[in-house]
């Protein structure tokens, strides 16, 4: 233990504690009622979060004292158990606001989907680090995708599309381990067609795709086999555009459509569905350089931003700490992510590296979607800001994710 203590990456641990503390400070302000009481007052949101923070320290000690080999060896068991916990929701779970996502233990609610991320990260790491595994092979890619898709399906059935979206983070470790860049490019183009179709309509986008493909064909026409290739490219693109249009209009529910429309500037309604984004922009925008001061935010006090202590906690930072505070948080996240990437790259074992990349991908996706949503450049997707947002399950799952990796990193030399 003494040897590994020295090897713990103290930079990551320091950033972790700064974030958790600053997060709590903002949750305190966002949930402050008329009569402040003890910071551990369990009936108050900030009191609960203080308890979750203390419990997560316990979690840190546990995850650091377990031998790193354990995680690798038992990852399959953990993954199976995680899937069971998701499936069990449909029997024992509690339904809140239409989502069956929680187990209720006498008032304390646990959201298994948060912990399944840890399990999936371990499972992917285990599979990708297998001696026979080669992610350049299609069959092996399928297995990896299935490992990711199972929890996604179970989570979508809750239904919780926001949490399911996070599982796209696993594309990053898979790419690092040899998945073709084409998957990411196809994903990017698909996203591009998706967004432009919603903005301009399938008709114009189909014409644009056809024109671009025709242009490419004419430009490269000396090469053989070109015609069929470009024709199929055009057909796939147009087909996707049309199906996006169809899915958007006929499959998605109205509130899903609204979320997209607001972010794409198709709809301006600051009272209805756009209220969250609008209020959150006002809160952040009114912060100025240095903010209105802790617990002095008028938007925060007036509770204009719904869910401010959870998904919109970043707007409290913006209002009360100003650009100084928000840029500090953004820079902290960037530093943490870059540090973790650096740590992942220095791993000798593939298992550790894949796990590290999964960790970076998950934190990054949460950060990007959440902050992007709060500052109005991303659709409204209900996922928390790691280590900041209120919530025990979220805090613990990120603590576990992070400290398992710190443990793996500390013992990276002794593993083999």
């Amino acid at each position, binding site marked *: 233990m003494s040897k590994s203590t020295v090897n713990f990456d103290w930079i990551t641990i320091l950033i972790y504690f700064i974030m958790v503390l600053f997060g709590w400070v903002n949750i305190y302000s966002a949930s402050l009622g008329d009569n402040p009481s003890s910071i551990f007052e369990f009936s108050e949101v900030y009191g609960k979060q203080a308890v979750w923070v203390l419990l997560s320290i316990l979690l840190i000690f546990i995850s650091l004292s377990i031998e790193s080999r354990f995680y690798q060896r038992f990852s399959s068991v953990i993954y199976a158990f995680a899937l069971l916990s998701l499936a069990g929701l449909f029997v024992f779970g509690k339904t809140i606001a239409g989502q069956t996502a929680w187990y209720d233990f006498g008032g304390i609610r646990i959201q298994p989907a948060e912990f399944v991320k840890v399990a999936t990260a371990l499972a992917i790491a285990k599979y990708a680090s297998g001696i026979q595994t080669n992610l350049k092979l299609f069959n092996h890619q399928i297995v990896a995708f299935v490992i990711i898709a199972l929890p996604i399906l179970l989570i979508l059935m809750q239904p919780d599309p926001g949490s399911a979206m996070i599982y796209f983070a696993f594309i990053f470790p898979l790419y690092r381990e040899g998945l073709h860049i084409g998957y990411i490019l196809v994903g990017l183009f698909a996203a591009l067609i998706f967004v432009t179709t919603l903005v301009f309509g399938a008709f114009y986008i189909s014409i644009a795709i056809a024109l671009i493909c025709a242009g490419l064909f004419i430009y490269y026409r000396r090469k053989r086999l070109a015609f069929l290739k470009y024709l199929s490219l055009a057909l796939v693109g147009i087909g996707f555009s049309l199906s996006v249009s169809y899915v958007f209009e006929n499959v998605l529910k109205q509130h899903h459509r609204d979320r997209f429309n607001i972010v794409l500037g198709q709809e301006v309604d600051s009272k209805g569905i756009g209220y969250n984004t609008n209020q959150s*922009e006002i809160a952040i925008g009114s912060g100025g350089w240095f903010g209105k001061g802790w617990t002095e935010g008028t938007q925060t006090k007036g509770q204009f931003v719904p869910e401010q202590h959870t998904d919109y906690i970043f707007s409290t930072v913006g209002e009360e700490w100003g650009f100084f505070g928000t*840029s500090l948080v953004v820079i902290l996240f960037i530093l943490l992510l870059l540090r973790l990437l650096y740590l992942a790259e220095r791993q000798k074992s593939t298992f550790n590296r894949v796990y590290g990349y999964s960790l970076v991908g998950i934190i990054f996706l949460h950060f990007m979607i959440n902050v992007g949503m709060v500052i109005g450049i991303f659709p409204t997707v209900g996922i928390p800001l790691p280590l900041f947002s209120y919530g025990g399950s979220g805090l613990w799952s990120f603590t576990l994710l992070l400290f398992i990796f710190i443990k793996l990193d500390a013992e990276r030399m002794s593993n083999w």
Partner: protein
Amino acid sequence: MRRLLLYIIILTTGMIFLGRLFYLQVLDDSFVARSQDNAVKVVYDYPQRGYIFDRNGKLLVSNQPSYDVMAIPRNVKVFDTAEFSQMLNISPEEVARRLDKAKVYSPRLPSIIVPQLTKSEYAYFQEKMRNYEGFYIQKRSLRDYQTHNGSNVLGYIAEVNKKIIEDNPYYISGDLIGKQGIEGYYEELLRGVKGVKYIQKDRFNRDIGAFKEGIFDTLPKKGKDLTITIDSDLQAYGELLMENKWGGIVAIEPATGEILSLVTAPSYDPALLVGRKRSQNFTELYYDTIARPLYDRGLQAEYPPGSPFKTINALIALQEGVVTTHDRFYCSGGYVFGRGRKMGCHPHASPLDMIPGIAQSCNAYFANVYRRIIEKFPTPQEGVDVWSNHLKSFGLGNYLGSDLSTGRPGKIPDADYYNKIYNYPTYKWFSTATISNAIGQGEVLMTPIQLANMTAIIANKGWFYTPHILKKIDGTPIKDKEFTEKKITTVEPRHFEPVIEGMHQVYKAGTASTLGVQGIEIAGKTGTAENFTRIGGKRIQLTDHSIFIAFAPVDDPKIAIAVFVENGYWGGRYAGRIAGLMIEKYLKGSISRTDMEKWILEHSLEAEYMKPYSGESFRINQ
């Protein structure tokens, strides 16, 4: 590449986020204002407006509570329009129209929907308030008039308009502001300072306590009570006498410059401009373009002063040493000058020296005196300028600088003026060209208050305090230098004695010999001024204005007065009688010349005023 991709994505995201945050928080400051609108409500606490007392401590203006139904359009929920309109006695269409208008002004800020409820409307509506979300009742303080007179002196209160709100950040929509008179000029003293409370709201627009523990909140400061120089009894009497006549009366206490009464006719009851009928009444007054009741003739009407102006020409002549009191001038039924032109005069003994010259108001006498003033100097330009400067030291030809919210400069010509109209030096002009100035016609124009001040100067023998209307603020006499420092004229005190004696003789043996009051020695001067109007572009002469100035008692003047009665014919006919009655009323408190009072009360000039509007040809000076 496989190692770099995630680095690039992370760093790019970080940059985009920082840029977006910099834009939101630092570059674009519109969010700050939106946050203020959103989260902080401002509530005003209006102080009681100051009371107004007359010089004898009689309460003229106090306050009454008034209740306005206000609405914040954004918060207005569907409500029972039928009940609402029935309860407040207003048509449903009108309610809808006013709500739309309020929405245009601001969906977030309160607007008045129904102003100034009656007590029963208020009681009834108060009961039903909770059914009308988004509406509330704003208590304000309205004026309660204890007098029916002096509306021109008191001024009135009106809701601020858009321009005032833009020019003066103190006021917000729905605030009241003093307009004209005392209310306008002393607005800041009377209104006090409204208190402000900042209240933190939550997203349901509920109050959740003071913003920042109330450190920005202020308490209201009560308005100051003002005592004005007006004698309300004299004012009321003056308005009574002026009924059915157009014109003005200004009475000043010579020793202090305090305005004792300031009558304009026609006038209106100040209470007309309070309450729900206010705007209707105001519109009626405003669009009465013939009688013009909102036009303060005592302050704004520029009349030719006529014969009272002769007194001042006598003073200037004595000061310049161009005549002695014993110099006599012949009058042959007028004064002949230039190529057979003649300024007429009425029959009287001839020749006259100064004292009977004033008493008989001989035009020829003053034509000679005037020419001597102008011709004392090598050129008429120098002469006219010396003459003009003397007049200006009497507060003529420019704004008096009184604390009344309106006024006019009148007109005293100088050499430049005549050079311009006679196109000097291409054409020359001489004293005879300006000879009408000798008798207060021609280019000279004065307002009644200037004329009253001139009378006070004669009573004081050469000095005056700027006439003013404010006497005390919260019981403390005013200290404003403008009103407490003597202004000395360019005419020495000794020259006033013969002029005063001449004016005394006006009552003894002159043009006002029938207007005297038993037991009061009055010095006065009649005036009859020709005047013209334009009808269809043609200059048409109307019946002369009846003018009179007087002060009394002669040896210890307590009141100096100027009276203009438009188209009242000669000076002694209307103005002289009114001046005598006013003086007796002020000095004795009762009237002994009931014959004069009866005559004035029974005579109306309304028919005279309608002549030019009748469209038919008419005769004047009947």
